[in-house]
Every structure is written in C-alpha cells, then in structure tokens.
C-alpha cells in the first residue's frame, strides 16, 4: 500500500443495479392514478379536491407524528403515506364530511401501517383498513351517494363536505344510488357506456373504468404490479357472473357490468396488488386473485351489501401469509422433473 493510492472501498458485488427503487414504485402508482383522479375532479368538482386533500393530510400527518424522529424525513419521502391517502380518498363517497376523511386517513396510516412496524410489515392494505374503519364508524355518511355535479359546475361543493366534526350530519340535497345499489335493490341496470366513462354516482375513484385500466397498463409496463392479481380477479368475476347468467340472466349482472361497476377495477388494479399485503409467489398471486374475485361476487350477489371489493381484499390479505407459506416456488433442480 503506497501513500498515493486511492482509498479503496470494499463495497460488495453486485455493483450494478436496475434503476427502480421503492419510492419510485410508489410514485409510479400515484402517476398511474392521475387520470382517474382527474376524472374524479371532473365529475365531482371541488368536493373531490377537499376529500382527497384531507385524506392525504390525515395520512401524512399520522406518518409524521408516529415516525421515528431520525427517520422522519425518509419515511415521508418514500411517498407511501401520500399513496395511502389518495387510495383511501378514491374509495370515499364525494359527499362525505371532510373531518371524517381526515380521520380515515389518520387511522389508515396509524392503525393500518405504523402499528404493524411501518412500511412492509402490515398485514392489511392500509387504505382499505381506513375505509373499513370509516364504514363501521359512520355507516350512514359512508353509504350516502350523490350524483355527479353535472351542470352545476366545478366550484359547487356538496353540503355534506363542510359538516362540523361530531355534529349531526345534515344530509340534505339530492342523493342517488350507485349502479351496484340500483342493481341490487331496484334491479335497474346502468348502461355499460356510462360505467366505462364514469358518469355515474359512486365513490370518487370508482367511476371511470377505462381510466383506471389505463393506469393499470402503465403500471404493468413499468413492472410495478403483479399482473397475475388483477387478471385473475377480473377473470374470476367474469366467469362467476357468466356462470350465474346461465341460471338466470335477468336476475344476475352481466360479466361486463360486474367488471366495470363499483370499485372492482380500482380494487383489483391498485389495492389487491399492494405488494406488501399480497402474496409474493407467482402461484400465490393466482390463488389470491381468484379468492378476491370469488369473494367479491359472493358478497355482491348473495351478501347483504351491494359492494364487496373492500372486504374481499381485506379477507384475502389476512390469508396472504398462509398462501405464501404453501406456494413456495420449486427450487431449481428439486422439481419432480429432475428427481
């Protein structure tokens, strides 16, 4: 060793790495959600901004509050808090009081993520956990659907948004049933074209199926999502409803209606594919997706609720560790082929 030699590092191989990082993957999901989010602004006006904003605020606040002080800036920078806020906001009804949305975001991160040990350790999808919390706590506000703003313009706000915390919520104004609600309780079928473009009442993000698909294709191209999960969910739902249609085409929804209505695409593309809470093995992904699809249809068709995506995904989240354990890949040279 001579004096003028450079100080050599001993950083272990591999020195090369592909460019993707976890925060980048998170941001990719945000970009993918952009078209659908803009559509929600288009359909629900300023209310969408308020709901999404308070959700993100609640989520990020919880992240900041509960993060280790030294790791604070890092855990905020990985964008997972913002993503949870956006995902939660997109599942909420546009007329929801803002303080509830805030509470939802806060609970999603604190009870959905931080308490488990932070990013990567949670069993349930935080956004859906937050929504489940809201649905259990404020069942009326969470199931009061309003029509799209239509002609009344961007700057009109649904009166419910501005309700004060813990006051009796004044739900006046016009309410309107979601396509799934109409299907279940009134046997009215919404035309597919409206479903695909999203001009129907429903939660903020579950309106435009085509824009959600667009984001999904972006994620698939960036290899940010496991394509097996959305594909298996959608295929299962199609097969399930087609099979039901064989028995009674009048009573049960058509396959395409099942796919484009409600939160199915939002859930299948953006929530079921949450890498943390879905199986890591390829075989497990298929099982997980099929499980979600079957549960969605069971809840929608035979259950008491019009929509079942949230519970379907949460239930399969709970099964994920088990699925992972039993679907370990066959190690090279240990398969039946070669033994």
């Amino acid at each position, binding site marked *: 060793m001579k004096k003028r030699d450079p100080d*050599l*590092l001993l950083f272990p*191989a591999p*020195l090369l790495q*592909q460019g993707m990082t976890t925060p980048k993957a998170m941001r990719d999901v945000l970009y993918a959600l952009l078209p659908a989010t803009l559509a929600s602004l288009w359909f629900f006006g300023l209310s969408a901004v308020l709901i999404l904003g308070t959700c993100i605020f609640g989520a990020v606040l919880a992240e900041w509050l509960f993060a280790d002080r030294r790791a604070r800036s890092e855990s905020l920078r990985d964008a997972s808090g913002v993503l949870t806020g956006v995902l939660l906001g997109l599942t909420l009804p546009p007329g929801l009081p803002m303080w509830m949305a805030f509470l939802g975001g806060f609970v999603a991160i604190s009870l959905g993520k931080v308490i488990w040990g932070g990013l990567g350790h949670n069993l349930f999808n935080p956004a859906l956990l937050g929504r489940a919390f809201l649905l259990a706590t404020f069942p009326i506000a969470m199931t009061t659907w309003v029509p799209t703003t239509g002609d009344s313009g961007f700057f009109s706000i649904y009166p419910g948004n501005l309700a004060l915390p813990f006051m009796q919520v004044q739900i006046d104004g016009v309410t309107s049933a979601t396509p799934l609600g109409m299907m279940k309780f009134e046997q009215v079928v919404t035309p597919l074209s409206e479903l695909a473009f999203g001009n129907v009442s429903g939660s903020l993000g579950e309106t435009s199926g085509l824009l959600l698909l667009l984001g999904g294709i972006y994620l698939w191209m960036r290899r940010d999502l496991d394509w097996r999960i959305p594909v298996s969910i959608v295929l299962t739902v199609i097969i399930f409803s087609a099979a039901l249609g064989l028995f009674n085409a009048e009573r049960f929804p058509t396959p395409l209606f099942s796919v484009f209505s409600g939160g199915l695409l939002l859930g299948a593309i953006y929530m079921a594919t949450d890498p*943390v809470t879905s199986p*890591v*093995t390829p075989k497990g992904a298929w099982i997980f997706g099929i499980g979600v699809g079957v549960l969605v249809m069971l809840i929608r068709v035979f259950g008491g609720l019009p929509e079942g995506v949230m519970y379907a995904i949460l239930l399969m989240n709970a099964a994920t560790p088990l699925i992972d354990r039993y679907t370990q*890949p066959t190690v090279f040279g*240990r398969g039946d082929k070669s033994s």
Partner: protein
Amino acid sequence: MEAFRFLRRNFEHGVHPAHHKQQTENLPIQRVPFGKDYLMPLGQHIGVPAQAVVTAGEKVRRGQLIAKPGGFVSTGLHSPVTGTVKTVGDFRGVDGRFAPAIEIEADPFATQQVDVNAAIDWRSLSLEEFIEAVQMAGIVGMGGAAFPAHVKLSVPDGVKIRHLLINGAECEPFLTTDHRLMLERPEALLEGAEIMRQKLGAEETVIGVEMNKPDAIEILKQHIKPDQPIRIVPLKVKYPQGAEKMMIKSVFDVEVPAGQLPRDVEVNVNNVGTIVAIADYFLRGMPLIERVVTVAGPGVTYPANLIVPLGTPVRDVVKFCGGLKPGSREIIMGGPMMGRPIASLDAPILKGCSGVLVFTEEQTARRKEYPCISCGRCLEACPYFLNPSRLARLSKSRMFDEMKDYHVFDCVECGCCTFACPSNIPIVQLIRTAKDDLTHRKEPEA
C-alpha cells in the same frame, strides 16, 4: 419440433443488466510488459493449496514448476517469470486472511522466454495420465470459480460424459476476455475442445455463446472442420447465462438436480479460457502462467484486454492502462455481479481473475435501504427459484437454521436478487452471512 426447441432454449428467471461491453469488446488482446514483483498465492484454486517446491533465493525460469499439488483437489503452480524467489511465506490475501504464497522478483535482464517443453503427444496418454498432466499444468476453471479442471475430468466409474459443453456466454457485464479469445484464437479453442472431447469420450462438443457476440459465433463456425462434431448454440443474452447449471438448462433443457454435478446429466462444462489453456499446454507445452484479463470500468483511463502473467500486482496492470481516473473508489476482481473487491493495489492477478474493474463514486455510493415491501422482484429474478425475500428477512433476524428449510445452500450468490431489489436490500450479503455462519459455526460441546 426443432424450431420450438429453439424457443424454449433458455433458463427461466434471471436479470438483464446493461452489458457495458462496448468499452473493450473491439480491443485486441495485448501483452503486458514484465514488471518486477510477482506474488503467487499457493491457493489460487478451490481446494487444497499447492505445496511450494522452491525455497527463497532459488533461481526460477518462466514456466518452471514452483509448487506441486497438495492433494487431489489441488493443482501445480508455475513461475510466471524468470527471476529469483524472494520469499516463501504468508501474505495477506484478497479475503484479508493470511495465506502462503511465493514472492518472485523478475530478473530484469532475462529474455522471459518460456521454458517450454515440446508439444505433448496427448493421444498416447491414458486418461489417468491425461488427468495428471492437466493437474500438473495448473489448469483451473478460468471463468472465475477456479475449480481445478482435472477434477471435472475424473468421472467415477459408470458415469458417461456424452456432451462437452464449452461456456462462451460471458454473461457478466464489462468482461470481454472470452469474447476476444473466441475471436482471436478460434483454432486453439477448437483444438483444445477436440482434445477434451476425445479424452472424455464425449459424443459432441457444444459451444454456448450469448447472442451479443455474433462475430465470435461467425468466426467459430468458419473454423469448425466438417468432420468435427462441434456445434455452436447461440444463447439469449441474460444474466447468469454462464452459470453452468443455467447453461445446461438452456442448451439441453435439463435441470441438474440440486446437490449434483453436471456429470450426473452426462455433461462436462468448461470455460473458453480453460479450453484454450488446455490447448496451450498440450500443443505448445505452455503451463498456466498467464491469463487474459479485461481491464475496464468507468475509472480506467484506457480500458484494454490484456495477457497478464499470473501474480502481477493490479498496480502494474492499472498503470499499463493509463492509471486510475480521479474519483476511482473501488476495484473489483472478476465481474461486477460476482467479483470481489480488493483492498489494495498490491493484490496479484490470480488464475480465476477474469477482470479488473474500476468503479467510481456513482456505482459505489451507499444506497438508501428501504424496508422489504414483498414486491416479489427477487423471486422473479432468482434463477434457482429460491425465495430471496424470505431468506433476507430470516437472515436479518439471524434465523440461520430456518434458512436451510428455504434451501439457502442452493444459492450460488449470482446477485440477481440484489440487482433486482428496489429497496436496495443487500440480499446476497445477508445470504452469504448466513451460509458462512452455518458452515463455520462451532457446535456447542455436548
């Protein structure tokens, strides 16, 4: 059906690093001038170290035997230069441990003519004599593992080798030694292949070359004589195509069972460099005293493919290439995926060292590690179908014994998982730690 076989001709999983070969792939192999100090560690290969047969102060000629095999899984060692043995003693090796080595000082006035024996009549040798000759010539796997070549040749009774597979994939980024050897010495490669094939009694020779070396494929095809049962198989460009079990899967569509060797599926795999070394020994009497090394990477002023005498300090090699650029932070021996960093420029070039790669700040910056989000990219990268995500988690919790249930010892440390990980988790390091603990742990006395 043959057309469909071609489509299947691949192993599953793996990764696609940028191959960075443009730096040196068109540069002809040059010879490094002789320097002054040479250090020949006795354990340059996997197995038992060789035993020195020279003592300090003794004069040696280039190509003279300086150490004899220390056992069966061991090879001979020859002096890379004409000069004087300075010391026979312990020197610090690449891994930081002290290991025996022979230090030779070159004679500045010597011609450095190789003290060659005449070509060896390999046809008249029996298989045992052939194996012993390979062992004494010091020939080891030149792809990086440095596994003694003669051990692969000695097959137990009842096992038949049907295919000789020559590995010209060179899937590691940056490295171009095998590529240049195939381009510049196709005759030697094909002659060496014939020697090996006839001695093994194999039916055919297959040379696997990644498709990013079309010129090498073309030249080899031109040099094959019609009566030689040699075929060239172009392989998909994918890392780790050159891992022997992966290459067997790609070429023959056979999985070598875990814990078994290529010979169990009737294949013998050798690197291009190894075969050329065999040809050099049996046709020209030249033992393994030098090898081709790619010097490249963003920190090298003039990248090159060089013939370097073994034992040359990296310092001399780098100096020949114009020195290090400012900002060079790390030197890797071997490829960037599996190579080993060296702590000092005094480290010598060894038999298994296919590259000297110099990296700068950019590649060696500490990457921020994020928690594992179970995205599964490592599972889709692992060519051995392990669960690196699980292994890394277990290793972090120091649950090394549980890792055995996840077949941690099937891992070849190719680095695909770590390459693919978006959370920058040093998965390979964690696995190495566990393997090391499991193999070196002292069981408590009962």
